């Protein structure tokens, strides 16, 4: 077995030095074994005959070829591993970039919503209020006998008030000052009430103690609920919706279930609304679970960790 004392070193070279290491050691092994044979030394030198030459040749074939093959396999595996590692790193980099982009997109969307809401409230709302006052004054200034003109101005006043209400609702939808100053529960109650009034449906809202929720989490929960209600009314044609807000230690959970037409959650791809909800939740380390079947309504569960986001 003395003959195989070089094999461990060949295997060592195969794992650590690659095919070039193994092939170099193989060449050295061949050189030394041939020189030893010629000089009458070593295991193959019993007699310098054809048997000795064939023995050396077979010995070299048996030792060098398998180890070289193993070295090549190891090198290929290493190359594949490196390639996969690089691909993984690239993928992670792109994923992080897309996350950052989504974060910026949602932030800028919120910023823009706030600006439009402020413009609607401060400019358009004020102008409509002034118009309403002017119409009221015009109505008072008219002589008592001009009943037709009075009724026209009253009609105009009602329309202006309706437009003013719509502008205010739109402004609140874009940016809820209630959420900012009175908190999530009050804002969600208002949202449910307003949605129910607008679409003539029933929305049941329930919540437990949800004090101390950071503004970022509140805004996320509000937007997710807003989008879910909008989807339930617009796409689900729901007549009855249940909204439940629940805080369990450091986790805020929102359940939104409706009795609408539902959809096949396994087949349908996410629309922009669902993507937006998922992105908002993912930004804060949360998740969205959607369960729906055709004709059986839709259940949405949104979970946001409170501590991580704070």
């Amino acid at each position: 077995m003395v003959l195989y004392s070089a094999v461990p070193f060949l295997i060592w070279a195969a794992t650590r030095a690659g095919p070039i290491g193994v092939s170099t050691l193989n060449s050295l092994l061949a050189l030394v074994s041939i020189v030893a044979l010629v000089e009458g030394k070593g295991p193959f030198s019993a007699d310098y005959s054809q048997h000795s030459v064939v023995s050396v040749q077979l010995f070299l074939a048996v030792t060098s070829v398998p180890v070289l093959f193993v070295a090549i396999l190891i090198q290929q595996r290493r190359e594949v591993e490196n390639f996969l590692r690089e691909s993984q790193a690239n993928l992670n980099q792109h994923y992080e970039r897309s996350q950052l982009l989504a974060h910026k997109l949602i932030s800028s969307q919120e910023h823009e919503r706030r600006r439009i809401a402020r413009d609607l409230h401060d400019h358009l709302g004020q102008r409509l209020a002034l118009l309403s006052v002017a119409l009221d004054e015009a109505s008072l200034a008219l002589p008592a006998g001009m009943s037709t003109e009075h009724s026209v101005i009253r009609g105009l006043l009602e329309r202006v008030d309706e437009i003013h209400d719509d502008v205010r609702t739109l402004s609140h939808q874009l940016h809820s000052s209630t959420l900012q100053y009175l908190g999530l529960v009050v804002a969600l109650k208002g949202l449910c009430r307003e949605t129910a009034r607008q679409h003539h449906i029933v929305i049941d809202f329930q919540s437990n103690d949800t004090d101390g929720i950071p503004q970022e989490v509140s805004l996320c929960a509000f937007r997710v609920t807003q989008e879910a209600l909008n989807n339930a009314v617009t796409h689900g044609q729901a007549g009855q919706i249940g909204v439940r807000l629940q805080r369990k230690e450091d986790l805020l959970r929102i359940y939104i279930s409706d009795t609408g037409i539902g959809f096949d959650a396994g087949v349908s791809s996410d629309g922009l609304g669902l993507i937006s909800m998922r992105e908002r939740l993912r930004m804060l380390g949360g998740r969205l679970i959607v369960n729906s079947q055709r004709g059986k309504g839709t259940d949405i569960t949104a979970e946001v960790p409170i501590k991580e986001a704070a």
Partner: protein
Amino acid sequence: MAAGYDFWTSCYHWSLGDAIAALVITPTLLYWCLKGWREIDAHVTELVALIAGFAGSLYFTFLLPHSDYPPWFCTVLCHF
């Protein structure tokens, strides 16, 4: 045939020698010409230890006298 062997024995030796030379020498030349050493990730000290160990094993195998030569498999293989 010049050494006194018949044609097929000579042909066998010649082919086997060529094949072994191609298997042993060709990869070495190709890897060194293609600068394959760049893919070695072992440290220099490890390479030195490897070469020293390999040289030691060659010395032990081919230069020190042993009593149990030839190994049985060589004897068996040589009868083919």
